[in-house]
């Protein structure tokens, strides 16, 4: 079915309005007219036209202002400027404001028909693109929740069977060897569940989501909470946890839920890869206009050749000390993705045998709000998320 296009003609000259309307109606378009800018905008809101012809020089609201407001009504609207003076300057300015084309007065019906047809072709493409974009986004979202459910359900069922079989009071006595093998199988299922969860979480981290939940907040209580939650693990591993911070540290701007996840992940790494009676020191300070959180451990350290790789998905440092530890190889890449969605940066220093220090740099409250705005603009032009760690300069960067 051919879509019936709607065209709005805004011009203070009745003769122009009527003749345009007549020509275009005969072409099979639905037309509407307005005698000035404010009536035009009212009608645009009501009828949602596909294309608008706007006279630049009108009493009241100028054509330029109309062009700007039209974009707010529908960013995909196609506007064509009618200019009586036919000055290149004003036409250029109109194009800058997003007009698709311009037609100088006086013009012939043929010229009008041609420019309208081209404008509507543009409109058709814009609509198709935006429909495709919408569809793609929807598909991505559906895919994630589908995978979540379909992948996790069977794993959970298997896990439940293991739990029940291994509970001898419920299922009866097992042979020692059977019990051992079933326990191991159950642990592997745990690992797989964790992997699936981590992976899904990774796919779920999006800059828009983070921006939506972002707020100004104090980092210190958040760090305290993360440390508190990890205390049992630290006690079990015989590792001491410590928090150092000055009192008047400016507030951070970000999403508390995902940032807490970042700190918990790095601190728990610090505990897991530590030595007996080691410690993990978390310190909060300001550094170069940013907030810096250092997480320093006294563990085995990371070999130099592994350092550039530790934030990669599924990378795990192999060695004597790590073989027995269960991990998915996604923790740090999730952490980095979250920090970068905050326009922050994550760094690491390490000395083999002495320990590693991870530094998370985050923007301060005031500053980052401005940044978010400029980030939005760039995003529209198609700049995607940048996951290259070396190119991110934390809060200074105007991405």
């Amino acid at each position, binding site marked *: 079915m051919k879509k019936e296009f709607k065209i709005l003609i805004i011009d203070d000259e009745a003769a122009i309005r009527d003749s345009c309307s007549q020509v275009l109606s005969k072409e099979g378009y639905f037309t509407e007219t307005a005698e000035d800018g404010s009536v035009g905008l009212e009608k645009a809101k009501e009828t949602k036209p596909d294309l608008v012809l706007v006279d630049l020089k009108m009493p009241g609201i100028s054509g330029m202002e109309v062009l700007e407001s039209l974009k707010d009504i529908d960013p995909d609207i196609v506007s064509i400027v009618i200019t009586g003076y036919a000055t290149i300057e004003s036409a250029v300015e109109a194009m800058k404001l997003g007009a698709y084309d311009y037609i100088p007065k006086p013009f012939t019906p043929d010229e009008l028909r041609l420019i309208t047809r081209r404008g509507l072709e543009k409109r058709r493409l814009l609509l198709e693109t935006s429909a495709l974009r919408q569809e793609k986004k929807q598909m991505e979202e559906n895919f994630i*929740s589908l995978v979540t459910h379909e992948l996790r359900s069977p794993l959970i069922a298997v896990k*439940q069977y293991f*739990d029940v079989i291994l509970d001898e*009071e*419920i*299922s009866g006595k097992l042979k020692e060897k059977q019990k051992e093998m079933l326990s191991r199988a159950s642990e592997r299922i745990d690992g797989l569940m964790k992997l699936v969860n981590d992976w*899904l979480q990774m796919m*779920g981290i999006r800059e828009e989501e983070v921006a939506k939940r972002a707020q100004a907040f104090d980092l210190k209580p958040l760090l305290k909470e993360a440390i508190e939650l990890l205390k049992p693990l630290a006690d079990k591993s015989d590792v001491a946890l410590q928090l150092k911070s000055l009192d008047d540290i400016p507030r951070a701007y970000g999403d508390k839920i995902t940032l807490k996840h970042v700190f918990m992940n790095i601190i728990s790494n610090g505990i897991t890869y530590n030595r007996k009676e080691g410690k993990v020191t978390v310190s909060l300070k300001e550094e170069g206009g940013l907030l810096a959180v250092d997480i320093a451990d006294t563990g085995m350290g990371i070999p130099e050749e592994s350092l550039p790789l530790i934030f990669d998905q599924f990378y795990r440092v192999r060695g004597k000390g790590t073989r027995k530890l269960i991990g998915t190889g996604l923790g740090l890449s999730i952490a980095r993705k979250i920090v970068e969605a905050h326009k922050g940066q994550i760094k690491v220093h390490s000395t083999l045998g002495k320990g590693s220090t991870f530094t998370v740099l985050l923007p301060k409250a005031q500053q980052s709000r401005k940044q978010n705005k400029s980030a939005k603009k760039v995003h529209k032009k198609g700049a995607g998320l940048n996951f290259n760690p070396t190119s991110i300069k934390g809060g200074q960067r105007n991405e």
Partner: protein
Amino acid sequence: MNKKILIIDDDEDFVAITKTIFESKSFQCVSAYSAKEGLQKIKEENPDLIIVDVMMEDMTAGFRLVNTLRTAEEGSEYNVYSKIPLLMVTVFEDVTKIDIQKKAGTTLLPVDEFMRKPVKPRELLTKAEKMLA
């Protein structure tokens, strides 16, 4: 007379496992594989405890079931069953990021207890026994 537990879940394995757990302690178990069937079974069996999943025939079937029960007014066919203890067991949180734990027990989600899958058999037993006491 042994207490009767109704298990409502579209995952047959979960129903089978849960049955095994409770039958080991001589509870009587009945099951339903959708919210719709669940409501029917409630009327037929008048259980002492209901264990219910969230996502069954659709994303929120379990939520509607507990609300139907709990808000059943006098004269409604479910009114006599509106006080049966409800235990919600689900993975719903992972899919939607909604914190059910916090909402459980409020008028928004009128269940008595909530557990995340996979549930530990012993925790499930302890919780159910407490609810039945």
